[in-house]
């Protein structure tokens, strides 16, 4: 029978302070679902709406506990993949709305995805974006060159495959690299927040939605309008990405954290500017040579006749 004195709990205090006091102490990281590559996503917890608001970012423990309950099918069955499409229409609309209206302080993943990442959004938003860019580019080139005599319209179908390669590579390879990078940093620094690979893919996929109306509006053949659109789209989707990933790198070395966020935004910029430059011809430049050429031809025709 234990004495009452033996039943006292030892106070360990905050993790960070105890680590600071004793830097060589061994630490065990029982964090998040991002650790095991075999289980790609944390399960959906039912009725966690209130918990999310209260716990904020610290619900990765609960995610770990609930992990074994949802994805029990092996990866070669059809049911395994059905768990990634377990979304209703209103949920997809909510997530799209969340990507269009970034609220400072609210994390897209915690607020909208809530451990139910889906593949429907990323896949079909990317597919729509591919065709939106290819078709808008074609239409814009047609309208720009409309009056010219020497212009023969071509559908430029080859550009669809190029657009598809670029956009799907961006939507899958960049999240993969980011996930690997975050995993590596997690092993060095204790991080409260970590994301699974599917959640990162989901954020990237939904953040590309703003480019669909942007691509359609890029048909307007004014340079200033196009660049304003680029700035606006970049502002919105860049801020969604930055606000999502800032909590994941905030615990880290200051410079590493800033470099990560800057790289994310830079890659996003590269995608949008690259698409604008490649698929859409510049509006004013092409008009000038033809108006200079045509009077020449009429003059030479008049001379020869």
């Amino acid at each position: 029978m234990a004495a009452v004195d033996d039943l006292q709990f030892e106070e360990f205090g905050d993790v960070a302070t105890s680590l600071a006091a004793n830097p060589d102490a061994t630490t065990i990281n029982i964090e998040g679902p991002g650790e095991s590559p075999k289980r790609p996503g944390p399960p959906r917890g039912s009725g966690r709406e209130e918990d999310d608001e209260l716990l904020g970012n610290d619900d990765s423990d609960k995610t770990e506990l609930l992990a074994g309950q949802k994805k029990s099918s092996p990866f070669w069955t059809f049911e395994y993949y059905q768990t990634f499409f377990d979304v209703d229409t209103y949920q997809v609309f909510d997530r799209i709305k969340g990507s269009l209206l970034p609220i400072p302080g609210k994390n897209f993943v915690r607020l909208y995805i809530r451990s139910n990442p889906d593949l429907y959004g990323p896949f079909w938003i990317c597919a729509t974006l591919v065709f939106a860019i290819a078709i808008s580019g074609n239409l814009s080139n047609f309208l720009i060159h409309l009056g010219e005599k020497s212009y023969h319209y071509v559908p430029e179908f080859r550009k669809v495959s190029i657009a598809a390669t670029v956009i799907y590579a961006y939507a899958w390879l960049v999240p993969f690299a980011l996930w690997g990078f975050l995993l590596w940093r997690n092993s060095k620094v204790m991080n409260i927040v970590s994301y699974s690979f599917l959640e990162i893919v989901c954020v990237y996929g939904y953040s590309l939605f703003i480019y669909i109306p942007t691509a359609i509006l890029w048909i307007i053949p004014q340079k200033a309008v196009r660049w304003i659109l680029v700035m606006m789209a970049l502002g919105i989707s860049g801020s969604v990405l930055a606000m999502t990933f800032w909590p994941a790198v905030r615990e880290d070395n200051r410079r590493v954290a800033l470099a990560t966020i800057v790289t994310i935004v830079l890659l996003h910029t590269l995608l949008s500017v690259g698409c604008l430059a490649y698929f859409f011809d510049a509006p004013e430049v092409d008009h000038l040579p033809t108006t200079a050429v045509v009077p020449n031809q009429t003059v030479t025709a008049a001379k020869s006749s």
Partner: protein
Amino acid sequence: MAEAAESPGDPRTTSPRPLFAGLSEISISQDIPVEGEITIPMRSRIREFDSSTLNESVQNTIMRDLKAVGKKFMHVLYPRKSNTLLRDWDLWGPLVLCVTLALMLQRGSADNENDGGPQFAEVFVIIWFGAVTITLNSKLLGGNISFFQSLCVLGYCILPLTVALLVCRLVLLAKPGPINFIVRLFVVIVMFAWSIVASTAFLADSQPPNRKALAIYPVFLFYFVISWMILTFAP
């Protein structure tokens, strides 16, 4: 008429209590009839299934399949909620339509390689992989339609767009100009709407109710891309 069975051998000499000792006491009374007739149902009952389709003429076989395909075309042109497309699916119609579309849309090899319309293989791949992707999407979302039924419906509903392509080709023989383009645009838009209505009439019921829009949107995108390829066709 059965009689009491006689036990084989003398039970008293083999063992004191043989296994089937009680059998010898059983007798079947004559009140329960155990007689009857065993007959094989005659030709009037069985349909002459197996032998007849082997022996029929080739013309009969082909006409039967053609009639089935033609009936489905009629169902697409006048879409009502019916089960014919789903129940007896076949992929002949989609194949014929896809090959026709791809043959007419492909650019000639004399044109410049980089720009221009799609090649035969590109149209073929877009149609079949598009249909497979939409089917997989609808099944992953929880729809209860079989894989080939969905492919069949999506393939048959390309028929209005094929008609639009034929009309566009005829219109392009006339003088080019904005009126030409407006006519083609109008025809393609009408046929696009017809395709969407036809495929929605067949496919919508098999989706779970709160995910209908998620399953129908890819169909919209699919037919939109095919309509774009038809509209921008320039020989």
